[in-house]
């Protein structure tokens, strides 16, 4: 029914013939991309992996220590705190970032007077500098900030958004979602344009309401995009750094309780006396976990498809 087959599994036979027509060309198409990502991302990462088995410092070449760094990591309480926070972040942020930007995209999709302005305005959080964004949110959520002032006037009392570890993490998530709205909105906008109008109209004629049309037409047609947004936002959420850093401070909250894995990598590995070896081990763990997340999402998608 849907013409948007994702995989070779459902392709018409003629299409397969097209693909075998020019056997050499796929690699011609792929070479530039593979060269760049291979040469400048994957190849250097090999040295990170090698480093993770040494006790290297920023300026000092390391000695081989076997799995020492990985062993240390398992006994490092901060690592587990970081892992917990990063996972909590993924769980908290991803559902919102899959749904809300889609709704926003549908809100601005319609051509009504002034819509260009609104679209550009909704995109500003994406382009605004993180530091500025951090400042404004800290100001809003501060003990003497706007939101607490409002809460006090309605008799609710102050809420320690920026002093309680869990509320800090939640506040950071709010900023992530807020900044992600515009970002994922435009991915959805581009995809929404692909939903054949005829389908909507057919539905409308059937008398289907907005909600039903959304569920029966838009969502199925955008499923692959939603999966992609889910995967991207999951990876980004797992690797969150700036928002937590700006809200919870360089130590990652009171006593480091809001530290995320990437913050830990930064704390451990930066500076001229950074422990590069240990930080590399942490990076490898981050890489493996995000790869797992990504493959999990893509696999789940394919299974549903079949």
């Amino acid at each position: 029914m849907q013409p948007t087959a994702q995989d070779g599994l459902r392709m018409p036979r003629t299409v397969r013939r097209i693909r075998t027509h020019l056997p050499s060309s796929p690699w011609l198409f792929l070479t530039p991309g593979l060269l760049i990502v291979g040469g400048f991302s994957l190849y250097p990462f090999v040295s990170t992996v090698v480093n993770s088995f040494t006790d290297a410092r920023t300026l000092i070449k390391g000695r081989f220590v076997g799995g020492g760094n990985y062993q240390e990591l398992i006994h490092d309480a901060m690592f587990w705190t970081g892992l917990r926070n990063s996972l909590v972040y993924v769980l908290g942020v991803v559902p919102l970032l899959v749904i809300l930007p889609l709704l926003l995209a549908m809100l601005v999709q319609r051509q009504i007077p002034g819509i260009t302005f609104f679209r550009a305005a909704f995109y500003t959080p994406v382009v605004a500098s993180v530091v500025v964004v951090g400042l404004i949110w800290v100001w809003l959520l501060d003990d003497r900030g706007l939101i607490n002032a409002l809460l006090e006037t309605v008799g609710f009392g102050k809420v320690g958004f920026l002093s309680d570890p869990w509320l800090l993490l939640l506040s950071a998530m709010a900023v992530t979602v807020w900044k992600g709205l515009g970002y994922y909105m435009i991915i959805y906008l581009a995809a929404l344009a692909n939903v054949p109008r005829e389908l909507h109209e057919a539905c409308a004629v059937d008398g289907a309401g907005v909600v039903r049309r959304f569920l029966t037409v838009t969502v199925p047609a955008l499923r692959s995009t939603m999966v992609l947004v889910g995967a991207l936002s999951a990876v980004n959420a797992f690797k969150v750094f700036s928002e937590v850093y700006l809200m919870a401070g360089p130590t990652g909250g009171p006593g480091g309780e809001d530290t995320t894995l990437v913050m830990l990598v930064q704390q451990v590995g930066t500076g001229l006396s950074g422990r590069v070896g240990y930080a590399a081990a942490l990076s490898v763990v981050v890489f493996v976990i995000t790869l797992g997340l990504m493959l999990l999402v893509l696999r789940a998608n394919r299974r549903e498809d079949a």
Partner: protein
Amino acid sequence: MTAGHRERHGDRAERRRMPGRGRTPRWRLLLRYLLLLAVLALTVGPFLWQLSTSLKGPGEDIYRYPPSLIPGHLTFGNYAGVAEIIPVWDFALNSLKVAAANVLTNCAGAALAGYALARMRFRGRRTALVVFIMAMLVPVESIMIAQFVTMRELQLNNTLIGVLLPACIGAMNVLLMRNAFAGLPYEVEEAAFVDGANAWQRFVRIALPSVKGTLAVVAIFAFMGAWDDFLWPLIVLSDQSKFTLTVGLNFLHGTFADNQRLVAAGTVIAVLPLIVMFACLQRYFFRGVGEGAVKG
């Protein structure tokens, strides 16, 4: 819901008619605007604050509580001040060069790779896909120094090409393009194939025009990525004459005293091109597959 398509028909009369279209009651439109305004308040706040700080004259209390959004002594002096302290136009030009090149390389490279991954069948396709996924996941921070050493071996340190190269085909953009191509109906290309078009012709004439929306997204992400990047250009470049805007604007954070107004003005200068770029490209989001593909 898909009224956006109408824009491309260029039918002014129809567009003018739209708000009052029979099927859409007025209250719905009103609701839509109310929603838009609510989201607007939520999203542009920070930017207004920054804009307002950048327009405040000396002697105004920028830390006042509660803060005021309206500058007491409106001035554009801070913008002139930025240009006085740093060669802001030279920096902007460098940034523009890198960002424009980044847009071209990303659109071309990601489209090519994405097309192959989505529309061609060959041994190693899955592996190629996994390679891109893995590349996307490599923590950039952990490889920066190794990247710098590579650049030095290529004699590209302290050049704008060195700034451009590592991100000139982003793995995420490849995945975005793959997703877009995968969504195209096969029938279209089939027709072209019957007409005897080869893979290149099908890619350039049929597939590419059908994914303009996603190309625009890639263009925006690529431009923004290059424009905002700080640490990598800082590490690659040594001569101030080659600095990009983000690096250069950092000089506004004085060693001994921060002038928040100048910093704010700098931020506004840095952000404006991005918003303009977005405003220009956004119409492409509404010209997707419906057009070229179905017609063809």
